[in-house]
């Protein structure tokens, strides 16, 4: 498992660069990950990321776009605007979580 420096912290990541340890993440790290993929974080972005983190902690799985809408109450169309093209993967990356495993 590669180790890398993100925002001054040494963290473990997988081969694609997704963080692999939940507790190694903090919001400074999240902001650095977002910047690396060209996303400037706003409060709205953080709401989505914080929901992903807490839902992962409760469920043990990265929420899908549908879950962000049905459980998190987030607007799907808006998520596609905030995290263009590949919202689920981009959010998982910024939140320091694995890519969503579910199909839907």
């Amino acid at each position, binding site marked *: 498992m590669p180790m890398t420096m993100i925002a001054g912290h040494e963290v473990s990541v997988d081969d694609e660069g997704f963080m692999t340890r939940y507790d190694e993440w903090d919001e400074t790290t999240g902001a650095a990950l977002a910047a690396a993929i060209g996303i400037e974080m706003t409060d709205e972005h953080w709401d989505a990321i914080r929901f992903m983190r807490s839902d992962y902690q409760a469920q043990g799985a990265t929420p899908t776009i549908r879950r962000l809408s049905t459980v998190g109450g987030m607007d799907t*169309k808006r998520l596609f605007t905030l995290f*263009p093209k590949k919202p689920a993967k981009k959010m998982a990356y910024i939140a320091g979580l694995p890519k969503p495993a*579910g199909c839907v």
Partner: protein
Amino acid sequence: MTTQDMIVPAFDDDVETGRTLAIICSKGNLDMAYPGLILGNAALGEGVDVHLFFTFWGFDMITKGRMENLKFSPVGNTAAHMPMALTPMPGVTKMATHMMQKSLEELQIPPVPEFLDLIKASGGHLWACRLSADMNHLSKDDLYDGIDDIINASDFIEKTNGAQLLFI
């Protein structure tokens, strides 16, 4: 273990591939409605432009009066793993449909109308077949509200120029 430079996944943002997926949904059974919806939704999540065309029996997927009541029948379906002589018995299709709906719900797969909402909100395009509408004497008012339009086969071919195509 050594520390290496930050690895940034390639989300292909800078690649203007213009990938488009066209899916023709021609079946109205519950089990055959899902492949197109699932693949279409997955493609949208990958930044692919998606067009679904509903035709013939697939028209039931977008007809307001029918879309919530699609059925799964094990009749003639050896993959249902039931004795074929039993499959046409009264109540079997109802029971099989109920079981499939339950399995889908447990896996958090939404019912057809809600799935269409998700696809629409994710930027997917939904097209209804003109001939199917005429055959069934249906107008846009009878169809799911998110339908972009009722178009003919030539229009669909034109709209999906260069697309990868799936016929289901």
